[in-house]
């Protein structure tokens, strides 16, 4: 009896077992192996993306001129290119810094005792360092023959409620000690603590004295347009040319808090009711895994976001398309008659509709209405589904027609099986292998169409691979030698769809034995 009980198994186990069998068969083909490997990579990356990127990433990406992107170098190459022997300066981020020194200074000349470079520095020195003063220093090793882009300081103020931040003023002085011993005051800024912002290199601070010092013949305006070259380079030929100046740089940050009694400020810092986190970034010409675009957006994060989007949209659209095609095709083939006639005419129309122009039309309509984000994407994908199921329906219909006249369907009718039982138990299972192959083939379709629409300038507002390519296309004048902007999204798009094309070819070979190798 026990052996007799074993004849019927849990359908889930049956499905899993046949899936495992299918996988095993796919693996025997080279194409299938390649496809599976890429697919596995895509899935891993998607999981990584979903777990690391914040939920509001799309809107962050959209507002390109806001943090965090303004803290990044612009048009930076990927970091790893330096290992290919390319001279490219690195981006160094110094966060959670502690002041090297902090004390109350009442006479500005006393600063020389804790920050002697201030005295040596050339610059306008409009703001005077007195009050409660903190000094931060970081070292940046410009180890290659390249310039850096910028130095910036990001402040984060935390205070308990009883502290009136608007009364406390912060004077920021940023000094740069170069490998040749020259000290430049590269930034000066002053603002109340409640209106804190970031401080960057300010060409105005040092330009005049710099021109004087090196006896340059260029004008102040010319100096402005290439200030970072002046900061990280040595002028030649009167400033018409610059030579890169690699070596050890030191950034000195002097923060002078004034506005209220410095002793009170010292007390607040002491008891922790006021805290200022300082992050210094020396922006080089390389950043992260995939560099940045023209506004400093981290292309790795952008590309990373594309993984789950591509997989999800591809699968959902393909699944919806194939399911509709399968169901309507089977209905059309099995029931025939008037239903068949109606579905056939419908298919006639939809397979002849020019889909891309239609999508562009809808895309432009969405855009002029100002819709963006997931709803816009959903509408576009809906249009794709509505006009793509025709091909599947044609094939499943003819397959249903031939299965319908098989004797085992007659046999099922003879025992009195209901129509739904015949359709779901006897016809659809025969169509599953074909349907699987089509499903796999059509996964990339949606995301490629989406990318194409993006490149045409239809902005659904999500950072997909297509969107990133579209940005490059829109900035073709500067993007042309930024291969790290053009290649990764396009290659990923291609590999993504290659994986499914390869799996599709393999499945097709397995399903259609005549194509099998001899």
């Amino acid at each position, binding site marked *: 009896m026990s*052996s*007799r*009980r*074993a*004849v*019927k198994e849990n359908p889930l186990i049956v499905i899993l077992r046949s899936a495992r069998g299918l996988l095993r068969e796919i693996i025997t083909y080279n194409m299938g192996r390649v496809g599976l490997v890429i697919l596995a990579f895509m899935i891993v990356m998607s999981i990584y993306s979903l777990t690391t990127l914040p939920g509001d990433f799309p809107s962050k990406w959209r507002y390109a001129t806001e943090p965090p992107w303004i803290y990044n170098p612009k048009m930076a190459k990927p970091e790893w290119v330096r290992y290919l022997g390319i001279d490219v300066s690195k981006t160094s981020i110094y966060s959670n810094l502690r002041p090297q020194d902090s004390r109350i200074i009442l006479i500005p000349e006393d600063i020389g005792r804790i920050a002697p470079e201030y005295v040596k520095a050339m610059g306008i020195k409009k703001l005077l360092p007195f009050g409660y003063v903190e000094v931060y220093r970081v070292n940046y090793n410009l180890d290659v023959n390249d310039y850096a882009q910028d130095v910036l300081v990001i402040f984060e103020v935390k205070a308990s409620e009883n502290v009136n931040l608007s009364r406390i003023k912060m004077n920021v002085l940023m000094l740069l000690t170069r490998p040749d011993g020259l000290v430049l005051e590269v930034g000066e800024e002053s603002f109340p603590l409640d209106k804190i912002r970031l401080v960057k290199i300010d060409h105005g601070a040092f330009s005049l004295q710099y021109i004087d010092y090196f006896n340059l013949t260029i004008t102040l305006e010319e100096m402005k347009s290439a200030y970072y070259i002046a900061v990280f380079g040595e002028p030649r030929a009167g400033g018409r040319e610059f030579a890169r100046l690699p070596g050890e740089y030191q950034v000195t940050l002097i923060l002078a808090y004034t506005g209220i009694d410095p002793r009170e400020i010292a007390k607040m810092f002491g008891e922790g009711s006021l805290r200022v986190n300082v992050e210094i970034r020396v922006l080089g010409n390389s950043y992260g895994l995939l560099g940045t675009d023209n506004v400093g957006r981290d292309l790795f994060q952008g590309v990373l976001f594309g993984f789950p989007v591509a997989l999800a949209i591809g699968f959902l659209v393909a699944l919806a398309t194939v399911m509709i095609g399968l169901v309507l095709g089977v209905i059309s083939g099995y029931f*025939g008659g008037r239903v068949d*006639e109606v579905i056939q005419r419908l298919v006639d129309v939809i397979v002849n509709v020019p889909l891309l122009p239609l999508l562009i039309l809808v895309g432009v309509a969405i855009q002029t209405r100002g819709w963006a984000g997931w709803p816009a994407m959903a509408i576009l994908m809906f249009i794709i589904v509505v006009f793509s199921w025709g091909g599947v329906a044609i094939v499943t219909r003819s397959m249903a027609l031939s299965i319908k006249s*098989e*004797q*085992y369907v*007659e*046999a*099922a*009718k*003879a*025992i*009195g*099986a*209901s129509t739904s*039982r015949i359709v779901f*138990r*006897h016809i659809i*299972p*025969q169509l599953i292998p074909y349907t699987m192959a089509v499903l796999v083939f059509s996964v990339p379709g949606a995301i490629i169409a989406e990318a194409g629409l993006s490149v045409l300038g239809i902005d659904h507002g999500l950072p997909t691979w297509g969107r990133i390519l579209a940005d490059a296309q829109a900035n073709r004048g500067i993007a042309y030698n930024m291969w790290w902007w053009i290649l990764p999204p396009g290659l990923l798009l291609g590999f993504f769809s290659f994986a499914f094309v390869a799996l599709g070819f393999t499945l097709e070979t397995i399903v259609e034995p005549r194509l099998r190798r001899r």
Partner: protein
Amino acid sequence: MKPLLKVEDLKVWFPLRKGFIDVLFGKMEYVRAVDGVSFSMGERETFCLVGESGCGKTTTARAVMMLVDRSDIKGGRALFRPHEEVLSEAAKIQPDAVVDGEYIDLYKTRGYSNKIVRREIQMIFQDPFGSINPRMSVYDVVEEPLIVHGIGPREERIEIVAKALEAVKLVPPEEFMVRYPHQLSGGQRQRVSIARALTLNPRLLLADEPVSMLDVSIRAEVLNVLEELKKTRGMSIMFITHDIALARYICDRIAVMYLGKIVEMADADTIIEKPLHPYTRALINAVPDVVPENRLRFREVPIKGEVPSAVRIPTGCRFRPRCVAYDLNPWVQEHCAREEPGLVELEKGHYVACWVPIKKRS
């Protein structure tokens, strides 16, 4: 004893093309696959329909099995006498399908009444490779009728399936249950097909050329199973074959069909020994001789020409263009050309539809 099945003047016509255009232009042509067939079958009887391919014997069986589209049944009826309880259940939901208080008109059944009548009639198909879903295990195939008719808890169904498999000599059943069709031989598949038909314990089994696609060497195993079932379960079997020699071996009575009509019907022995219709004679003469050396001798098969299309059936007697008796008997030619002969009982239980013996007798 009242007959189990009565088929009365059954006509099954298939429209030639069901295209939209034909509907639009209102022109329809029909393939008259079954063109007025009447016969009846008793209980525990094995009844054979014999004829060449395309003569309508399979369509007749499919019509009795209610597999033909109702719209294609252009006339006649098929009456079946089910068990008491099935009859009363059907009568409850569809009193208009009950005829003479004992029979059910098969073509008036709908929905549930149709379903319960199907328990009493089952069919075995010709192609052992096509009649079993290749994606279902033997257990699934044989169990399906039980699920469809909502029989038993699973333990009971397993028991019934095992018994059915034992009955068709697929032993041990546990081993066969988990197999898939591609792991079975043709003969084994055909026995699975029989087992599927048996699970509902039908009164009437339709066997549509069940051995014609099997190797000669394994035909006997299937035929023996059928023979034994007939004895042990008391089933009536309608056996469809193109092989009149096989029909004689299996059947109690034989009906010979030609181009959608029964041309001769009698006891198996009578029809072989004393055939009255020229077509029957031709069929018998076409059977290879048992004596090997006789096979080498030229034997005349008394028939000419090809089977006409079932779309344009000849006027008068439909066998006339191929008939040797027509050529030999000029005196009936006028009759043959003018009027189609009806099936006339010339001797007790021996029916024939040919003007030559009918006119000779009268």
